[in-house]
């Protein structure tokens, strides 16, 4: 990239304003000039300081992608809590739209305008690896149970904030009404849904198919669960035709297709956005909804939801009770520090503080998420009681896939959530699998 030198542009800017003044619009022109110049004096030093600090005042930019996180940080007063211990540091939260987060960061990256602390999803670590600092020496990274599992090129680049499991949330009263037990196998799960459907009173499973992503408990996670391999995407990148009967991907998708074909997600799952599906579950129009643990705090914040009537069980994908019960363990929100940050040391200090006892336990309890830090246990309350009392329980740590997988994904625009939409829309399943096989194989042959 040919960078235009800032000083040069500043001169140009001033020239522009002067040119504007020539035609005698002096009132207008001069006002603008002072404003622009004010804008250009890099950091206004309007910090209110009671006493002269030895340390420079520092502002750390810290973006987040969820309004729920924003509410939590405000409630627990993150900014001021941190100020207490580090009076010279101001944490500036930037709320971004979740669906646009990645795009925004890529655009900002091209202009070296990344924030000081950059939260990433595990799958993005590979994309950003050249632009973020290795954090191997960070205490927070050393004490983290999962950070090392997500090394890229043998370095820890991000410290994951939380770990959670995937549940099917259900209304206890509806299950009682139809005399249903917690399903222990995939077959039992589908049967339970059908039974509720036949009752005709409730929509068995709420699904916000319009937004594509809410089908992730099925379309994104089930291949890994059927394979019992959290790094299944990387494995898949070593197979020529993973969409063939007998392969984990195909078998998982055949199950999902069975579920979608049973029409247990209401009259038009594709016409409903996530918000509506959430409401349907909250107002007991729907009996179940498949979502991660994070949904707990979401539910609590909604009006008039009888939380005593809500339970959660792990989505069973196994065929029989003698098989291991695989369930996803999701590790999310990796704190990373971009190389362009002006204050890498302060950013490191902040991450260490974030994972320290004082803040971390308080925050996770409030957010209803599980800890990633050794020796920190979070009590999740009664809602999940019994969810983990499964025989042969086996945690599958979900990963984002290798470089090869990413290359194939980009080349053929492989998008499991959109595939889920197509399956709900009733596209010819076997034809889809056939086509995927062809393009997959084709893309693999081009891997260097």
């Amino acid at each position, binding site marked *: *990239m040919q*960078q*235009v*030198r*800032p000083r040069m*542009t*500043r001169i140009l*800017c001033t020239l522009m304003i002067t040119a*504007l003044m*020539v*035609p*005698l*619009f002096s009132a*207008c022109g001069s006002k603008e000039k002072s*404003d*622009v110049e004010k*804008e*250009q004096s*890099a950091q206004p030093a309007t910090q209110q300081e009671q006493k002269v600090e030895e340390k420079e005042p520092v502002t750390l930019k810290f*973006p987040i992608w969820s*309004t*729920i996180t924003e509410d939590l940080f405000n409630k627990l007063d993150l900014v001021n809590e941190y100020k207490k211990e580090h009076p010279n540091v101001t944490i*500036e*939260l*930037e*709320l*971004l*739209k*979740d*669906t*646009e987060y990645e795009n*925004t960061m890529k*655009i*900002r990256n*091209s*202009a*070296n*305008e990344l924030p000081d602390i950059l939260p990433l999803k595990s799958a993005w670590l590979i994309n950003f690896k050249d632009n973020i600092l290795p954090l191997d020496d960070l205490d927070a990274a050393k004490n983290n149970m999962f950070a090392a599992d997500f090394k890229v090129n043998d370095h820890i680049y991000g410290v994951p904030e939380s770990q959670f499991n995937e549940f099917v949330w259900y209304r206890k009263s509806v299950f009682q009404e139809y005399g249903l037990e917690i399903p222990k196998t995939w077959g039992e799960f589908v049967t339970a849904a059908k039974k509720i459907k036949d009752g005709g009173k409730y929509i068995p499973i709420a699904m916000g198919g319009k937004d594509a992503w809410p089908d992730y408990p099925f379309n994104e996670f089930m291949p890994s669960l059927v394979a019992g391999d959290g790094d299944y995407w990387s494995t898949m990148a070593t197979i020529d035709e993973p969409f063939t009967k007998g392969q984990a991907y195909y078998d998982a998708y055949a199950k999902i297709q069975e579920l979608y074909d049973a029409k247990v997600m209401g009259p038009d799952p594709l016409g409903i*956005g*996530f*918000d*509506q599906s959430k*409401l349907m579950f909250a*107002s007991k*129009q729907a009996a179940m909804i498949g979502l991660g643990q994070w949904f707990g705090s*979401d539910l609590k*914040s*909604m009006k008039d939801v009888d939380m005593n009537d809500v339970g959660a069980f792990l989505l069973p994908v196994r065929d029989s009770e003698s098989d291991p019960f695989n369930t996803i363990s999701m590790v999310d929100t990796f704190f990373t520090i971009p190389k362009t940050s002006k204050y890498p040391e302060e950013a490191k200090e902040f991450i260490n503080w974030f994972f320290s006892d004082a803040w971390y336990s308080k925050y996770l309890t409030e957010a209803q998420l599980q800890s990633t830090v050794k020796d920190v246990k979070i009590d999740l309350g009664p809602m999940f009681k019994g969810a983990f009392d499964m025989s042969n329980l086996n945690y599958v740590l979900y990963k984002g896939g290798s470089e090869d997988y990413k290359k194939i994904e980009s080349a053929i625009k492989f998008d499991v959530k959109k595939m889920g939409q197509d399956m709900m829309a009733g596209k010819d399943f076997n034809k889809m699998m056939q086509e995927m096989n062809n393009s997959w194989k084709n893309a693999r042959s081009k891997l260097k």
Partner: protein
Amino acid sequence: MTPRLGVAVKKLAVYVILIAICLMIFIPLLITLFASFKTSMEIGSEFSLKPPGSFDFDNYSVVLEKGKFLQGFGNSMFLVAVSVVINALLGTMTAYAINRFDFRLKKIILGLFVAGMIMPGMITEISRFTVIKNLGLYNTIWAPIVIYAAANLVQLYIYTQFINGIPKELDESAMLDGCSYFAVFNKMIFPLLLPATATLGIIKAVDVMNDMYVPYLYMPSSTLRTLTTTLMYFSSSKFGSWDYLSAAIILVMLPTLVIYLLFSKYIFKGIVAGAVKG
């Protein structure tokens, strides 16, 4: 059929069609307005065109408090005002220079304007971002303003049409009276272009009000949200239920609607005067 009856039938048909058009415009708006006064339970259970049982402003108060809509309104208005002023200045100046003078680079400059109009959006954002950042305007309210000021073919077109309608003899007689080119522009052309400026003000204001991606990308700071980006955040938040969202939609629409209804007479005058002097 007597001719008179024919005329009557024609008139009736015209009214039926016009009323149908009005209904098409009003119904979605009415549904949203009603929904903004209902609870989510009511929205889910009753006919959408049934007026709400009571006009309680619960949804509105929640939205106003949570969404910071007032701040968004302030930012939007600031952007609109400054953009309209800057664009009127630049537009008239450019149109005057291009219409009244012949010079070597004219074709190229015009070509640039056309290019600006048909540039694929979004994808050029990467390089635009670099420019904005190097100007030191990133995350300030001036970033969108310079982008909006940059290129506007429609504006140039309308102004040029309009200047065409101002006879060159006027310029010449003023010059004979000893006015400079600048004075001609200041004293004569600019004031004469005011009706066209009214039209452009409307078009530009609508554009700026509606733009979502530029403010979203260049002003991430929460204090710099515009009405449109406020609505974007609001829609994806946990308050995304239709009761709150409807209230938010109405709130975002309201200011422009009120301004429009108050000034519609002048707006139409401006459009008629400024749109087509062919």
